[in-house]
């Protein structure tokens, strides 16, 4: 085929012939070089190839630390040792596995089976026999490794979460990069098998935490051991630090308080969010049930993964931001602000509560069937009177109410950058037409005005809304991270505190709502007395959100209702009531009573906050005389069934469910 190219008939133009000659020369040069490398030096180079003489070893960069606002380490990196076998390098198979079996206290045949045959293209790939060796085993293997070619130990930096499951949902998880992620431009330069942040802060600050990997060229002998000094080494650069707004003390207090809820509520599920009402700093955020992110650090084993993902209560879900629930009576504070601002009620407005409210031929019950008598706004908040809010909520109308609730930040995700957030839901007549193609019925306004019906809110949104009531109307962007630092502590980026909206309610009206909320906790007969902190005035609101309206559970004792049909318990609070600093939202899933399940958790959290500053009154304040009659039955719209294992001396008669929204 080539002969007619050099033939004389071909290149009429001399320059084409010249091009042909040049190309031929280049080809001949390559052939000579190939001959030299492959034929003359071939045996030598093949031997070098078999010895694997120079090997490049990746030096993984330790991932950056995550610190709390006081500089305490939440996540760091530790060395982890793993035992590997390269099948191709195994020289004396049987004795090697016999020795390994003794060292690791495992069955040699089992180890042999896991490594598999020394054949095929997989024979160079190291097989991991044991991960995260403890130092004793490591020392034993290392002392005998010279006699076991093909066996090696490998050290790598491993993520370590010092608090175990503490703040797990916030910190997130790490895991191997997925095939679809590798294709994205954001992961340019990543390789298959790289470990990246897959959730929470680990994912959000992946590029900052990651650092830069280094490499080392080493000479290795036939058994894969490094010999001599490294030829070249470029050290890895550790990742930068992330400083959170979180306060570990408060976080741990909230976690401990959550473990101490009454035994009836086991398993304890729910969420807590604590915000600084001046800056939006997230001081604590937890979600239950939870998981241990350390399980993910070395690659999660399939049993644990299966357990986490098949759990009905979904421990991986961050309930503080990723789930929304009906707000129940915590909604009343927002409704109160709207009523005042729209002049539907004035300072002297009262309603007589006979225990029910008639509208459109139906009867809407107050949670307290015997009625509250004549109540003003302050009483209505304090004792969580439903009829007061039915009466005026109906006058306000759903669309005016929706405008205010949205202004408090409900209905759109607050964008913390921690994965998909639930938006919450603020129903309006237009929403209902769009969603269901049906008009809004006035009766639905009545449900909405006590936080039942279509309304949904996330614990984070509730904390934001109460922070806005507390700080004079500023809707804050929650700030999870204060700043990013380089690995040696130099600040590279700070995150400013941000106000994203202002509620259209005057300072005087907000003050009026705050007075009512203070009464809830501090005054005799309030539903939130369990959130009290000695020496500090607390303002708050209980809530009990109905999960189902199933008649057959109405007469049952609480313990007999299946867990998933029990009501949710809420408590939202801020303190000090007169000059607020911190807002707290506590959500206990299926916790039944805001007053008994949620309020004590908020109380402990607030107490810890003020204790740290030495502001909690030293003397043990005797419980107010009203207390014996209070806690369990004062839960606002909760079913007053038999109180769990408590003194039966309750003021409210047990009886059929006094559910507000029951027709």
């Amino acid at each position, binding site marked *: 085929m080539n002969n007619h190219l050099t033939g004389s008939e071909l290149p009429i133009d001399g320059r*084409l012939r010249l091009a042909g000659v040049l*190309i031929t020369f280049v080809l001949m040069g*390559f052939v000579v070089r*190939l001959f030299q490398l*492959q034929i003359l030096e*071939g045996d030598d180079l093949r031997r070098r190839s078999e010895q694997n003489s120079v090997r490049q070893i990746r030096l993984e960069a330790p991932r950056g630390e995550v610190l709390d606002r006081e500089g305490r380490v939440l996540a760091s990196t530790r060395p982890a040792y793993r035992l590997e076998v390269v099948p191709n390098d195994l020289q004396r198979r049987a004795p090697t596995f016999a020795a390994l079996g003794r060292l690791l206290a495992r069955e040699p045949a089992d180890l042999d089976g896991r490594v598999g045959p020394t054949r095929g293209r997989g024979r160079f790939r190291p097989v991991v026999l044991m991960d995260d060796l403890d130092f004793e085993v490591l020392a034993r293997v290392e002392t005998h490794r010279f006699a076991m070619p093909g066996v090696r130990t490998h050290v790598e930096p491993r993520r370590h979460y010092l608090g175990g499951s503490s703040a797990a949902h916030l910190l997130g998880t790490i895991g191997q990069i997925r095939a679809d992620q590798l294709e994205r431009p954001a992961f340019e330069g990543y390789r*298959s098998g790289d470990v990246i942040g897959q959730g929470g802060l680990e994912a959000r600050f992946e590029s900052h935490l990651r650092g830069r990997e280094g490499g080392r060229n080493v000479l290795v002998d036939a058994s894969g051991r490094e010999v001599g000094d490294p030829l*070249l080494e470029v050290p890895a650069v550790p990742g930068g630090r992330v400083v959170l707004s979180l306060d570990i003390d408060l976080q741990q207090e909230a976690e401990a308080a959550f473990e101490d809820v009454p035994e009836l509520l086991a398993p304890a599920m729910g969420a807590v969010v604590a915000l600084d009402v001046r800056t939006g700093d997230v001081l604590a955020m937890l979600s239950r049930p939870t998981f241990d992110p350390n399980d993910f650090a070395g690659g999660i084993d399939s049993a644990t993964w299966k357990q986490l993902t098949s759990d009905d209560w979904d421990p991986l879900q961050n309930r503080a931001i990723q789930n929304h629930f009906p707000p129940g009576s915590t909604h009343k504070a927002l409704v109160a602000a709207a009523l005042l601002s729209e002049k539907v009620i004035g300072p002297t407005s009262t309603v007589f509560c006979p225990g029910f409210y008639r509208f459109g031929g139906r009867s809407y019950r107050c949670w307290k069937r015997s009625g509250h008598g004549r109540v003003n706004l302050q009483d209505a908040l304090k004792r969580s009177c439903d009829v007061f809010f039915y009466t005026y909520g109906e006058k306000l109308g759903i669309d005016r109410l929706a405008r205010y609730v949205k202004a408090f930040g409900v209905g759109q995700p607050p964008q913390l950058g921690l994965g998909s957030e639930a938006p919450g839901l603020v129903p309006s007549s237009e929403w209902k037409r769009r969603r269901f193609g049906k008009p809004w019925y006035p009766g639905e306004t009545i449900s909405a005005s006590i936080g039942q019906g279509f309304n949904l809110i996330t614990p984070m949104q509730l904390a934001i809304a109460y922070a806005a009531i507390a700080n004079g109307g500023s809707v804050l962007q929650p700030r999870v991270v204060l700043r990013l630092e380089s690995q040696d502590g130099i600040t590279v980026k700070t995150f400013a505190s941000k106000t994203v909206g202002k509620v259209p309610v005057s300072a005087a009206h907000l003050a009026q709502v705050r007075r009512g909320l203070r009464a809830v906790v501090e005054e005799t007969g309030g539903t939130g007395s369990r959130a009290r902190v000695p020496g500090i005035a607390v303002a708050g609101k209980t809530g009990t959100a109905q999960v189902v309206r199933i008649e057959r559970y109405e007469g049952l004792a609480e313990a007999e209702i299946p867990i998933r049909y029990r009501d949710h318990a809420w408590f939202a609070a801020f303190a000090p009531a007169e000059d607020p600093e911190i807002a707290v939202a506590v959500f206990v899933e299926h916790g039944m009573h805001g007053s008994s399940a949620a309020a004590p958790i908020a109380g402990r959290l607030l107490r810890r906050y003020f204790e740290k500053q030495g502001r909690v009154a030293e003397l043990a304040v005797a419980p107010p005389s009203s207390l014996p009659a209070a806690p369990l039955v004062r839960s606002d719209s909760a079913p007053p069934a038999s109180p769990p294992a408590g003194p039966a001396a309750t003021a409210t008669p047990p009886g059929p469910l006094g559910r507000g929204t029951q027709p």
Partner: protein
Amino acid sequence: MRPAIDRRSLQHFDWVLLGLVTAVVGIGLANLYSAASPGTESGMPSEFRRQLLALGVGVGGLLVALVLDYRRLERMAVPVYVATLLLVASTLVFAPITRGNRSWLIYGPLSLQPAELAKVGLILAMARYFHHNPPSEIRRVRDLWMPALIAAGPVGLIVLQRDMGVAVLTLLIATTYLLFVRIPTRAWVAMGAAGVLAFAGLWRFVFKDYQRERLLDFVDPSRDPLASGYQAIQSRIAVGSGGLLGQGYLEGPQTQLQFLPTQHSDFAFSVLAEEWGFLGSLVLLGLYFTILIWGLVVANNSKDKFGAMLAVGVVGMLFWPAAINVAMVLGLAPVIGVPLPLVSYGGSQMLANLIALGLLMNVSMRRYIF
């Protein structure tokens, strides 16, 4: 409107060229499968799947380049040239910075390196220019201002992308045509001296430190030894250990242990040399050589200057990257990120080179048409 392709052209279809190209592409795919398999847990390596997809697109491009009579393509040369320039320019606006340069347009899972397509635009524009201004009549350096301008378009934009390797490669493709001009030797010497002086001036007074670093890195990659020094050593070992007959397909220890990080792209030839040995390497080099010489024959037999100049451009477009890449793998040139045409992993080069070969077939099959 005449039919795009007539029976006479079909009768003269260049089956030999098609066979040669098919053989090279087939070897490339088989080689990529082996090179990419060690990073794959099971099944088909994802690079292999993506390359198959690119091949499908490339065959489409080849057919498009083949169907229209190349003399009609001449009228489209300038628009095609401008379009490819715009495509390259758009990377400066849209492309994310990856590995220090912005060469890639990315849309979802699809990515395109417009600089590769710019080479096709460049040879079309060059061929059109030299059709009307035969290079054999060019005797003075100053007559080259227009081709210099044509080359400066893509080269300048690619420099702005900060992709120095591809910029130099594109410049080399343009210089292929200098082989055909009749400029006296002393003019070359004078021009070379002026160039050196101008560069020295730029170096001393204009360039910033990082730009000097970048150029030095390009000239002497051992400045970054962990990457390129290591690669040079490993590539030499891989090629040499192939011996006469090779280590066997899917059996090369260097390849299967992934000693070379870019073995499926820039170092594809080292994988072939290791697994198929001296004889296998000769087969691939022989195929390349035959394609290049075949291209020169097509240029020679072409009935008009445009066809000839186009064929010369295609030969240049294949020759330079192939020669630089093989020289690099064999340790005869510094480590530069230049893919081996039709063999290395990379959809954009596959597409651009298949379009170019379509043009070559186009010229070849219409050699008897007047």
